[in-house]
């Protein structure tokens, strides 16, 4: 959605925008309006009440027209506020960018100077600056700008540091650009949104500060009107003629309120994190809105998915991440789910326990029977009791799955005590046993360490230990070894395989690596564009793939021991999930595709003993399956 669209959708920000526009337009046309001269005194008509004859807002202690003074004052206050915001932003951003870009000593010297500036109370600092420069509106402007420079410098420096170390800056260097050019063309465009956000939230504050200085008589000098000096002059008549204070006071309130509302709206609309909905609180379990009849109860397996469909609804588009998946796991069995990114393998796994974030995720059809109980549509309490107890997950990146601020032990103990009430000391003993069972050396000692103190392999062991904490019947492992080195991967895989045998664990193992599947899994399901295209015993499928996608995917993975060779790449790209073609999703890239592939629904049909394929022209089909 466009920036303006997002801004207008935020009602408060829109109200702020409208009020601000009215005020700015009034300030701009003030010289053209038929107003009395704001500076002509008429002591005979002093302290006229508002709405008295010919003066709408009354007159002040010198008989000057308050409406005229107010509009001229707003004009001046806005100009000074915006000017100081611009100056502070420009100088602050320049300081921040230089400090953040060069880093090291330069950064240290500049930022410590900025820190010193920030250590003074702002009004004291502003007073000191005005005192040394002498009173006057321009000097007040300089003071307000100077006081706000540190805020911008610190903000912009933080952003610059993160950008200065990105790969595109390195690439720019290798393209022959100098520092100045990199700052101007690579860094600055990425920093501008932050500058705008920082400005929009501080302009109001700067108008207030300018008014404060004028109120103290250090800003605009009589007879020139600005909002602060009007308040200052009205102070002595506060009790007897309150309207002289209320008029400029209310105006300041309206201006600052509308700017702040607008500023917050601008920030929300520009901030990419807020835009992507990252700060919207997801529901505790995935939204279920089944549009098709609920599949019949399935008790033959430990977990049986039938007709599972999960979609993402965002910005009026529907991404069919999972488009009808049937999959089962028996106790003690390891089932591999293989697919590329966007094939729906992770979303399938997360849907089982209602872990797909809603919004935008919605489960629109299907069932997931775990020991005969349908988990799709089960209430949150049921899911919460099962999660981590009878069904556990292991995620790809153990560093994000573990809380960085709690010790490994505290997290393990919590995982145990959530499901099984036991004294802390006993839970801790159990935690030590768990770490030992995943072969972590010095388990007792590691318990008091934090996740960041462990290596990647050790962290993933902790992740596995946590999954094992409550002796689950099923572990769903989502690419648990993808981010690990090969030697560590071999250790983790053999550990999982051993646990499967020793404890009779059922494992759903999600991966993109056929080598891993071959070594660990009894059965395998291959997914493409949200559906299973082939399913069966691992050995059978790897030796003789039936679906052209499986065959070609296996062929394009380089195989160790073959030496240098050209790979049989699959042309084209996977289809987009918000506009899946009719018929076979792979037809576009398939060398065997014919007319019939692009129409109707192609079913997953048996093509050999215990095997099924979703293709009308599979690579092979045994005689008894065809019967």
């Amino acid at each position, binding site marked *: 959605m466009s920036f303006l669209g997002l801004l207008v959708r935020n009602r408060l920000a829109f109200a702020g925008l409208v009020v601000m526009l009215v005020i700015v337009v009034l300030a701009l046309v003030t010289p053209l309006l038929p107003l009395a001269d704001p500076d002509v005194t008429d002591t005979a008509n002093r302290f006229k009440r508002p709405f008295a004859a010919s003066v709408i807002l009354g007159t002040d202690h010198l008989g000057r027209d308050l409406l005229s003074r107010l509009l001229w004052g707003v004009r001046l206050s806005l100009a000074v506020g915006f000017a100081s915001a611009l100056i502070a932003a420009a100088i602050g951003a320049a300081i921040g960018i230089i400090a953040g870009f060069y880093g090291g000593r330069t950064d240290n010297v500049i930022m410590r100077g900025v820190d010193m500036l920030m250590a003074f109370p702002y009004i004291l600092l502003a007073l000191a600056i005005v005192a040394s420069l002498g009173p006057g509106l321009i000097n007040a402007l300089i003071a307000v700008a100077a006081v706000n420079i540190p805020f911008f410098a610190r903000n912009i420096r933080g952003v610059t540091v993160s950008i200065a170390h990105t790969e595109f800056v390195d690439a720019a260097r290798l*393209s022959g650009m100098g520092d100045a050019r990199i700052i101007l063309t690579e860094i600055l465009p990425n920093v501008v949104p932050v500058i705008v956000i920082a400005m929009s939230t501080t302009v109001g504050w700067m108008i207030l500060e300018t008014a404060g200085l004028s109120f103290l008589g250090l800003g605009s000098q009589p007879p020139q009107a600005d909002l602060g000096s009007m308040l200052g002059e009205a102070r002595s008549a506060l009790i007897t003629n309150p309207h002289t204070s209320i008029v400029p006071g209310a105006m300041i309130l309206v201006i600052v309120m509308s700017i702040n509302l607008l500023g917050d709206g601008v920030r929300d609309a520009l901030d990419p994190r807020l835009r992507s909905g990252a700060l919207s609180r997801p529901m505790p379990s995935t939204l279920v809105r089944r549009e098709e009849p609920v599949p019949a109860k399935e008790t033959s397996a430990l977990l049986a998915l039938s007709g599972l469909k999960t979609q993402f609804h965002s910005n009026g588009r529907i991404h069919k991440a999972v488009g009808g998946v049937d999959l089962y796991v028996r106790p003690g069995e390891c089932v591999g789910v293989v697919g590329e990114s966007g094939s729906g393998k992770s979303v399938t796994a997360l849907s089982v326990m209602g872990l797909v974030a809603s919004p935008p995720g919605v489960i629109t059809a299907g069932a997931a029977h775990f020991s005969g109980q349908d988990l799709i549509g089960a209430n949150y309490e049921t899911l919460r009791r099962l999660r981590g107890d009878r069904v556990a997950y292991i995620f790809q990146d153990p560093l994000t799955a573990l809380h960085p601020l709690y010790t490994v032990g505290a997290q393990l103990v919590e995982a145990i005590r959530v499901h099984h009430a036991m004294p802390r000391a006993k839970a801790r003993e159990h935690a030590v046993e768990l770490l030992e069972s995943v072969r972590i050396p010095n388990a007792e000692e590691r318990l008091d360490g934090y996740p960041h103190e462990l290596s990647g392999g050790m962290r993933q062991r902790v992740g596995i230990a946590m999954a094992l904490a409550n002796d689950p019947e099923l572990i769903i492992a989502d690419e648990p070894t993808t981010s690990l080195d*090969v030697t560590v991967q071999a250790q983790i895989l053999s550990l999982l395989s051993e646990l499967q045998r020793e404890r009779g664990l059922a494992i759903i193992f999600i991966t993109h690596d056929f080598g891993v599947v071959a070594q660990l899994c009894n059965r395998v399901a291959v997914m493409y564009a949200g559906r299973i295209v082939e399913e069966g015993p691992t050995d059978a499928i790897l030796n003789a793939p039936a679906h052209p996608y499986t065959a070609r995917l296996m062929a394009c993975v*380089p195989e160790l021991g073959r*030496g*240098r060779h050209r790979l049989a*790449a*699959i042309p084209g790209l996977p289809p987009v999930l918000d506009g899946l073609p009719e018929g076979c999703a792979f037809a576009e890239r398939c060398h065997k595709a014919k007319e019939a592939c692009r129409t109707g629904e192609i079913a997953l049909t048996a093509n050999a003993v215990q095997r099924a394929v979703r293709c009308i022209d599979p690579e092979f089909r045994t005689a008894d399956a065809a019967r």
Partner: protein
Amino acid sequence: MTAALEVTELYKTFAVGKRLIGPPRAHVRAVQPLTLTINKGETLGIVGESGCGKSTLARMLVGLLEPSGGQIKIEGEPLNTADPAAFGRRIQYVFQDPVSSLNPRRTIRQIMEAPLKHLHGMSKAARARRIAEIFSAVNLRLDFLDRYPHEFSGGQAQRIVIGRALAADARILVLDEPVSALDVSIQAQVLNLLSDLKEKFDLTYLFISHDLAVVEAISDRIAVLYFGSVVEIGPAIQVFSQPRHPYTKLLAESAPVVGRPLTAPEGRETELPDPHNPPQGCAFRARCSRALSQCGLERPELVREGADRIIACHNSL
């Protein structure tokens, strides 16, 4: 054969625990003094696990990181300035994550023009001609030029990044895990493209990856890195099938291969040595089943064995 790239005793130490004034608390050696030669037209694969110094080495080779010592010679000419612009015309870098190596606020045209403008000072017409030439070489449509990076898939973005490296007209490309962020079906497309480009433009590759099979499929020779040093160099076809260094053997046996039963080739408690407290002697000793008492005392030097094998081991296989 002439050398495209010669590295002599190149090393890098990082300071840890920097203080405002005075020397840092300690130094960590990310790359031990390293000597390496890449011949013209060759693809040298570099494999190693995380923390072995692959990326530090690569960044030094393109001038993004100043070496602490040693010499880099490109096509016979020494370059020790750590000035990326001086390096840029001779050697270019292709990053692991194509999306983050393209500035999100610049169009593809602006990105592609940068090296042509700043390294070669080409005129507008010449730039347009050259970009058209490169885009056809990397199989991209010219109407992509006015779009922004976020509109492209990983595979397309990686083609753009490769195109930008070609635009600099460098003869040597350092490819730092160029396909590990891509899906397998896209990975094969990019690997084949790299082979085609190499032939077409007569390039020399330094191909860094943690994926043994990928490295083997594209390289002529492979160097195995462990804890900042080269432990073995040999022809691609032999290094993993007939490893001579125990670490290479461990790597080769750990890789999951279809049709090979799952084994944990070593004890499960092992971890990489601590760089803050480097071991004496051979860094691999603690994980090695063939370690001798000599291994704990002196670091094995790289020794040439036969015509094309170089190994650093006191008790090689």
